[in-house]
């Protein structure tokens, strides 16, 4: 499996993985989350575990089980950590603990290092046996509901270390806190190379013209992704340049606001036949891949964003990206180098026009963006970082480690 990444990811990353593999050979690394399929965490774990095993590490992935009450509660916790007002009662927390206790009894928690993903299994720390325990938070916790965050922190503080995606998500909990951005898998369905026929199939399916400049935003229909702002920008551009706009997103079953926002977007787009609002079914990775590959300019004009990996996905396909200067987007877009950061629809419109009128600049930015992603946001870098955190915890107090 690792060999497949040769020539795709930085050579040094693979070399370093091998070196770390030698150091950690036959040690055990246990990952625990709450779902085997669906969502970015499961997606990455599916690819990551076999790679770690190939490095000689005894990597395992366990999934906790829970009832509806548990998952309703953890959804509330998730939302509250992202800043939505939610009330989580003591009874709910007790149930959360109880489910964790039951899982702890069933799972083999013996490992040299244990990485617990997100709040659902966070209370497993109460049942730790040995090894280094690390809590991995994949959520934007920059502005959480304090009561919920504080309650969860009771568990988090008992870990040896925590990992967050962006510096501003860190919580100063008194334990080691590392910053590791998420990553994309260049060989996964959403990012692998496609044939011309693959791309044509998607364009035909959604009736997208293949021969006109295409602006694309892939995101849920969520006000924080500012789809209305994207349409406004498109309309400003349209006065000067011919173009088509595609807004592609999945219907958000767990997001009651999604339908309302979708309706607003459809109303705002009115009868403009050059605006394509696509409701993609789940598992539309290949279609998203094709749309990103055929786009002229990709937008992620978010007003608030966790990390915004769609930016890296588009950059990996050599596309210039215009993104809102929020969350993890400024880590991915180096303004003026790999794309543009904007603060308004007007700003987005101006940058779209610049790119449409200057294809060489667009190409140059796309190339640099791809290299930026290669060096910073591919799965091998994330594995490298996880193993490095573990290794550094075993060599505490050293700021330089010579392998």
């Amino acid at each position, binding site marked *: 499996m690792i060999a497949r990444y040769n020539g795709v990811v930085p*050579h040094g990353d693979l070399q370093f993985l091998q070196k770390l593999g030698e150091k950690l050979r036959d040690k055990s690394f246990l990952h625990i989350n709450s779902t085997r399929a669906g969502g970015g965490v499961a997606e990455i774990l599916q690819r990551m575990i076999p790679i770690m095993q190939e490095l000689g590490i005894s990597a395992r992935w366990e999934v906790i089980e829970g009832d509806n009450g548990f998952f309703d509660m953890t959804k509330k916790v998730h939302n509250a950590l992202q800043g939505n007002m939610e009330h989580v009662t003591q009874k709910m927390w007790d149930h959360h603990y109880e489910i964790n206790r039951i899982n702890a009894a069933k799972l083999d928690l013996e490992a040299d290092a244990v990485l617990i993903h997100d709040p659902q299994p966070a209370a497993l720390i109460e049942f730790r046996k040995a090894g280094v325990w690390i809590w991995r938070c994949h959520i934007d916790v920059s502005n959480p509901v304090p009561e919920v965050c504080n309650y969860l922190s009771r568990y988090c503080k008992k870990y040896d270390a925590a990992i967050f995606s962006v510096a501003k998500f*860190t919580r100063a909990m008194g334990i080691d806190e590392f910053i590791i951005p998420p990553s994309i898998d260049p060989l996964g369905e959403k990012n692998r190379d496609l044939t011309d026929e693959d791309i044509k199939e998607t364009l035909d399916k959604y009736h997208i013209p293949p021969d006109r400049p295409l602006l694309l935003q892939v995101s849920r229909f969520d006000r924080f992704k500012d789809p209305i702002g994207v349409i406004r920008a498109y309309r400003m551009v349209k006065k000067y340049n011919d173009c088509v706009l595609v807004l592609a997103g999945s219907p958000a079953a767990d997001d009651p606001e999604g339908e309302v926002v979708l309706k607003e977007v459809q109303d705002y787009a009115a009868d403009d036949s050059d605006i394509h609002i696509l409701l993609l079914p789940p598992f539309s990775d290949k279609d998203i891949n094709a749309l990103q590959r055929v786009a002229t300019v990709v937008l992620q004009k978010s007003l608030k964003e966790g990390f915004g990996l769609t930016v890296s996905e588009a950059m990996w396909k050599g596309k210039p990206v215009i993104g809102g200067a929020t969350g993890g987007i400024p880590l991915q877009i180096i*303004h003026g180098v790999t794309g543009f950061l904007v603060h308004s629809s007007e700003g987005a419109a101006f940058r779209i026009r610049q790119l449409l009128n200057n294809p060489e600049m667009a190409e140059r930015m796309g190339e640099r963006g791809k290299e930026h992603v290669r060096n910073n946001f591919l799965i091998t870098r994330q594995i490298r970082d996880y193993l490095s955190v573990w290794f550094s915890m075993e060599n505490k107090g050293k700021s330089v480690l010579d392998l």
Partner: protein
Amino acid sequence: MMDNMYSVSKGGKEMGEIVRPFEFRQCFSILKATGRKAKNLRELGQIISEVNEESVFHHTYQYFLKGHAHEYTNDFAHWAGESLEERALSEHLSNIDPYDFRNIADLRAELFRVIDSYLELFPEPREAMPGDEFYFNQTITFVFPTGIRAQNLAEFLMAVKHVDVGSIYYHFYEARTRLGSGADDFSAWMENVFGKRSLAEQLRAIDPFMHTIEGIREHVIEAVEAEVRRDMEVIA
């Protein structure tokens, strides 16, 4: 931090002498939070004067690892310019050359002095937007051999074209603090092993603040390629 990886004999290589090869090494870092953050210049100055040395090192010397556009030369200047829009201060801070200082304490003092002087002129600076505060981080750095070695300039030229940016960073930027002489590994090897003083001076003249790491690579290639060509012409 590590043993010298090249011979220190002066005056070039004699016939039959065993050449100490250039071993390409590479480094990368993982980011760790210090738990400190500043929302305005006063807090920035205060925390700079208190935070651990690793954090000051990271936000100055390691700026180039991040692949920024080169409008600034350190994270403090970047934040002052982009998040606080205090352009004049960001210019002052960008003008601080970390390699001018013998130790972090002196660099820290200069950063504090510049911010403090600015605050005397403009005592009510604006605050960063929530979420846009300056987060003080530090790094844990891993160094490892790439397995690539060069015995002569032609091999070096081939290698330097292909090693990862982390290797160029390690030998060109990180070496300046590691060797304590402000020089990079490339020029030191070329001068000490082959007596290529003029080439070494050419490499030392590359301004580390004015290029991306890829830009540094291009300049190194250009200089070494010209030297190799000259050497070949002499042989012909």
